[in-house]
């Protein structure tokens, strides 16, 4: 089975729009939160968002959007994009440059693209309102491909002329972790030799606010306190958007192109809670099963894992569930495994989370650090026993696990290894 490597990354995130800035934020535990202007109204109870800097994509008209000068995007491409498509398109350009790919490497039958976003609730709302008010035939012909779930893969596959496998993934907050897992399979099974894995979200009012109805958003107005996974004072997650791209390549392609990978992807696993549409299993059974399968598939024993980038979103139920799952998987070795959730810095990127945090793991593995638990002051007693470093550790983790969980009790675990 061909081995699979991470060879390129691209970021448009609340903690930076390039790998260097993101790395600095992760090392120094600097968050990307702000009081989000559209939320500063008395009728909106949550206030803080992990905002994307340097981009404005609030308008329903893509021609109003602004983005850094280094990106040139034709109207022909912009017109069918959602904000998450814009973020991901820019992250794609970075990842292509970072992996030193040329056009012949991108647009060919053995290069594919798997993507995940929640679609664009803002544009769905806008186009449906137009449909009802102005009539069906006065609607933008591109309203559908700009707004439905799948908009991300439709746009990227067309814009970058992808000829290999392409698919969108929809398992809510586990979506882009699923995308990465299945992209690994494509290469491991020899069907493709290169895969782009993309996660992105709009991260605006329409994408985030509906979670308030579920009472899962933090109502904490202080950006320094709103997102604190595993902390006793946590009260919900902070929303964010952006886009992240991870380039996976086979060992043959790595050798042929002579590139230095960030990390190796060893394997992955997934399992479901079979419990509740929106609430994690209290004992984290699905998450534990996913981790166990991932370790087995990777040929790794629990005690070999140095760091777990947790799914922990800073919700009351979810973090405890994952803590229990970690306890059951790592048992006696629990104290040896450093655990942190970088959502304390970025906020919860929903469909973006899995790809974004996997990319963080790739940075940590290559650059030799373990991100600490930002904003953690008093550990929730229910999460006791976890090794939760308060500051970033300057040691290189050899083996890293990334957890992601989504609605319906879908759980994914991915395992990465440092290149020695």
């Amino acid at each position: 089975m061909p081995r699979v490597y991470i060879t390129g990354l691209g970021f448009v995130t609340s903690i930076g729009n390039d790998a260097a800035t993101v790395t600095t934020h992760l090392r120094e535990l600097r968050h990307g939160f702000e009081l989000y202007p559209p939320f500063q109204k008395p009728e909106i109870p949550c206030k803080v968002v992990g905002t994307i800097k340097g981009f404005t994509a609030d308008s329903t008209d893509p021609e109003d959007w602004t983005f850094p000068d280094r990106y040139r995007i034709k109207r022909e491409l912009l017109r069918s994009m959602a904000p998450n498509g814009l973020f991901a398109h820019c992250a794609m350009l970075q990842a292509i440059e970072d992996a030193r790919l040329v056009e012949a490497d991108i647009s060919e039958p053995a290069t594919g693209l798997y993507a995940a976003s929640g679609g664009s609730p803002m544009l769905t709302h806008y186009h449906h309102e137009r449909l009802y008010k102005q009539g069906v035939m006065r609607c933008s012909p591109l309203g559908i491909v700009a707004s439905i779930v799948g908009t991300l893969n439709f746009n990227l596959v067309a814009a970058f002329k992808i000829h290999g496998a392409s698919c969108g993934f929809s398992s809510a907050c586990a979506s882009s972790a699923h995308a990465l897992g299945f992209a690994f399979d494509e290469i491991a099974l020899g069907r493709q030799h290169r895969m782009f894995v993309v996660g992105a979200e709009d991260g605006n009012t329409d994408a985030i606010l509906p979670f308030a109805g579920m009472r899962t958003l933090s109502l904490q107005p202080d950006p320094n306190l709103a997102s604190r996974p595993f902390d006793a004072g946590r009260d919900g997650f902070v929303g964010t958007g952006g886009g992240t791209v991870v380039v996976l390549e086979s060992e043959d392609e790595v050798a042929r192109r002579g590139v230095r990978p960030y990390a190796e992807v060893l394997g992955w696993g997934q399992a479901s809670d079979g419990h509740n549409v929106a609430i994690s299993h209290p004992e984290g059974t699905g998450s534990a099963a996913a981790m166990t399968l991932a370790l087995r598939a990777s040929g790794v024993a629990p005690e070999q894992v140095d760091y777990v980038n947790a799914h922990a979103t800073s919700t009351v139920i979810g973090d405890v569930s994952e803590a229990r799952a970690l306890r059951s998987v790592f048992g006696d070795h629990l104290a040896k495994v450093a655990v942190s959730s970088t959502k304390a810095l970025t906020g919860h990127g929903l469909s973006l989370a899995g790809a974004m945090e996997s990319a963080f793991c790739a940075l940590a593995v290559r650059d030799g650090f373990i991100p600490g638990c930002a904003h953690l002051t008093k550990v929730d007693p229910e999460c006791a026993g976890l090794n939760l470093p308060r500051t970033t550790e300057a040691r290189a983790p050899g083996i890293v696990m990334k957890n992601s969980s989504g609605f319906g009790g879908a759980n994914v675990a991915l395992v990465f290894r440092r290149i020695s």
Partner: protein
Amino acid sequence: MPDAGSTSSVTQKSAPLPAKPFAPEDESALREALKRCSPSTFEAAVQFRKTGNPEHVPAVVIGVIERFVEPDLRMKLKDADDDLRLIEDLGIDSLTMMEIVILVEDVLQMSINNDELRNLRTVGDVKTFIDCKIRGLPLPKPTKFIPIEHIGAVMPIQPPFLFLNEASVSSTAANGKYKISGQEFFLQGHFKDNPVMPASIMLEALGQLAVLYLLEGAPTEPGKMVSPQTIFFTGCEGVRAHRVCKPGDILSLSIKPKRMKMPLATFEGSIRVGQEKAVIAEEITLTFGIVDAANAPVPINGVGVAHGEPVVTAPEPAVVPTPIRAAMNG
């Protein structure tokens, strides 16, 4: 995936002229709708909405098209003639065409249905079309693509003397293609060990395209049609050959009617190979007759009165007049 833009619409009401007076709030809505268009586009739209005068329509239509064309291609619109093609020259795809239509509909307060839209190929087609809608005139006949089988079925001329592989015909022009296969019987002798398409045959091919136009594109009164048996060549003027055409070349033929007055129809014609000019004919004149559609003769297949005779008299390759041959080589 459904073919974007090709779904048929339900029939919509056609609104030839704006009904209600132009109010200040209409002007601000218009300004918002045209915010990415030139100021002159907005001015023309205001004038049209206030007066209903169709003279302002072309400026609005061109202004809206310009707004949707990539900036580096916009120069082409500045001094464009009506033959500028939307897809090939301006890079407008079917989805952009719909964006254009939706904005034009919005600004001119009219409705266009998808079936009508599909027939618009050039800037001229769009201008004519919108103008007819505004004035409440009947719409021009759409460009018809005519495959080889249909050409054979309607034409009085038949193989091995038919020099059209495919054609498209509108009410204002006809275009066709012919690939010189090398198997044409006359190439054996024209010339010895050097097959060259006779210029006279190329003129014949243009004449055949003009025949097809008369049969398929020429506007006739209801219930009447041009009879295939009545079409004959009468004369041509200003014929020049510019390029030697050989087996493998694909001739792109086009003709446009210049004058139509019973019983004569005069066309201008040209042939290109790729971007290269091959033959120009300033005038080709045919004579034709009209019959009742009900009494139309059954399409001729292989035998018939008109078979082989009409259109340009085709001299045997061996007797190609020297001047033409000289022109071709020079």
